[in-house]
């Protein structure tokens, strides 16, 4: 997958492209809007990550020019401004998603992948599997090593979200947003409590602990075997 990153802050660009490369993307990084637009118009990318405040040509104009030239790959907007107005402006201009700085890299990756899934039309599978743990979305049944596990509806949603992003870290904010539909984080760590319960049901009796906590960053479901 080829990804175009247009970002003038070198340090941000460095960790974003490093992370994206580790996740398997071929990343081209441009430091200003002019070069970025030139690349966008001439290279066949799959997705772009565009900062709004850019030298020479600002991000919104870049996206506008791209869209009016018939370039249709999805664009994730990065911005330090988080008012609803800015968000709406970014999305109506032709951006496909909007991420506010500072952001967790795991969230950026998840959003980029979601954009790709949407544009390539690959819908999520109805049956998710990680290290012997199987989750059937249609029948809403979960089993590990052939034994059925009873989950509450919210626990089911949480596990489904983790398994859809298997192998990738998801932050607490992302979980709050996708599982509870809350776009803020309560001061109390409500996600942690829920994850504990889920772990109890899924991992307690097994050597291979699937749900892992990455301190400070979030949670990941993966099999170490």
């Amino acid at each position, binding site marked *: 997958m080829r990804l175009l990153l247009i970002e003038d802050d070198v340090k941000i660009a460095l960790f974003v492209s490093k992370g994206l490369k580790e996740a398997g993307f071929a990343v081209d990084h441009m430091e200003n809007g002019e070069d970025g637009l030139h690349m966008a118009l001439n290279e066949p990318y799959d997705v772009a990550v565009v900062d709004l405040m850019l030298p020479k040509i600002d991000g919104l104009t870049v996206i506008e020019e791209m869209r009016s030239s018939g370039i249709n790959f999805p664009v994730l907007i990065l911005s330090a401004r*988080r*008012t609803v107005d800015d968000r709406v402006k970014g999305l109506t201009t032709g951006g496909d998603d909007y991420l506010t700085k500072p952001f967790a890299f795991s969230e950026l990756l998840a959003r980029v992948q979601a954009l790709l899934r949407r544009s390539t039309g690959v819908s999520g599978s109805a049956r998710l599997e990680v290290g012997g743990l199987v989750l059937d979305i249609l029948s809403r049944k979960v089993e590990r090593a052939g034994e059925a596990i009873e989950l509450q509806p919210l626990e089911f949603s949480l596990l489904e979200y983790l398994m859809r992003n298997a192998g990738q870290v998801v932050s607490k904010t992302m979980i709050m947003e996708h599982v509870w539909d809350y776009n*803020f984080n*309560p*001061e109390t760590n*409500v996600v942690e409590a829920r994850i504990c319960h889920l772990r109890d049901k899924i991992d307690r009796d097994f050597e291979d602990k699937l749900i892992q906590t990455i301190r*400070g960053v979030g949670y990941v479901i993966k099999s170490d075997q």
Partner: protein
Amino acid sequence: MLLNQINKHRNSLSFRLTVWYALIFTLTSVLALSIFYYHISKVTMENTDDELLEELEEFYALMKEGGVDQVTLEIVMESESEGGGVFYRLITMDGSILKELNMEAYEGVGVSADALAAIGKKEQYFFETISIPGNDYKVRIIYGAISPSMIFNMGISLEDNYEFLGIFRNLILLLMIPLFFVAAFIGWFLARHALKGVEEVTQTAIEISKGSIDKRVEVKRRHYEIDRLANTFNEMLDRIQTLIKGMHEMNDNVAHDLRSPLTRIRGIAEMTLVGNGSMHDYTEMAANTIEECDKLIEIINTMMDITETEAGVNQFKSEPLNIVDLVLSACDLFDPIAKEKEIQLITLLPETLVIDGDKSKMQRLITNLLENAIKYNKEGGTVTISVKQENQLVNIQVEDTGVGIPEEDLPHIFERFYRCDRSRSLAGIGLGLSLAKAIVRAFNGDIRVKSALDRGSSFQVILPA
């Protein structure tokens, strides 16, 4: 010097008022005096005419009694006693002069044809005023028949009249100058007096802009307008002062609340770098940094949310919200936390209750109240959430059996960053209730609190349905 002063004040209101006052006062005086002057000059002219008419009547009578000889004799006598200022003539009906006396100064004064015509038409007398070449003053002349064949003609120089009016005119002109200055002075005095209140407000404003925000304009019950200005000005200052104080306090608090996490981040990073850090130390440091950063971001975001909600920057999305669903979802969210502390969540809810509003804001309001109720509760306590609709109002009540809020803290708990001594030990940023209040206000509602120390608190939110 004076011109400089005038130039400096040319645009000032008091200068303009003074000038206008002086001009209007002077012009009115000039008009009044002119009318007066006009009447005086008319009266003097009438006096002269009366004098001439008297003479005519006298000679008419004399003619009847003593004939031409008596008249001639009288003319000679009078002309001698009057001197050169008055001339006398006797004229026939066709205009030929029978006798003339004192004509030295009136050479060239002929017999007026108009006069002859008028008298020919049986008019009793005829007046005219003529100028004589080489003489500064005009002459007033009377013609009148004293017998069927004889006309008495007399002329009198208007020199005395002109002199009298001239003195009067000079007097008026002389008066005008001091009058203008007196008017200017009175005008200036009145303007100063009227604008004194404005000046006081200005002085106060100057002092305030130099830094003494405590200053206020004295309200002296002088004039309604000025007092109103002073009062309005003072009220505005009170409000500004409150705002500035609030901003100062908030700045201090923000600085404090940002400084503490930054100190922790920096300290731990430094210790890790300086010490013989193991891989584990570095991992710890990175994780710690992320956690602290998330806290900082949360503070910044929440502050922005409060400011935006208060200012109404983000026009609220308005969608139908089922309060009951939102409360249930919030309870579900906090259920594991409550269970950990063995706190019982009790809900008293109707089947459904829908109002219009922004979902995210309402979620936040309910979550903040519920979170506080659990956080400041005792182990084994209860939290009761009840939702009711009464008349046109929605009543959401969150009651806990926790530590309660000391009475002296109650008025401050909705202030940004305000944290009671008891809550300082617990994690949190002290913005939850400020945001809750801002949201309630944005919904045009109200939030109230009751609390008893060690018995619990009760927050009540009232929203228009």
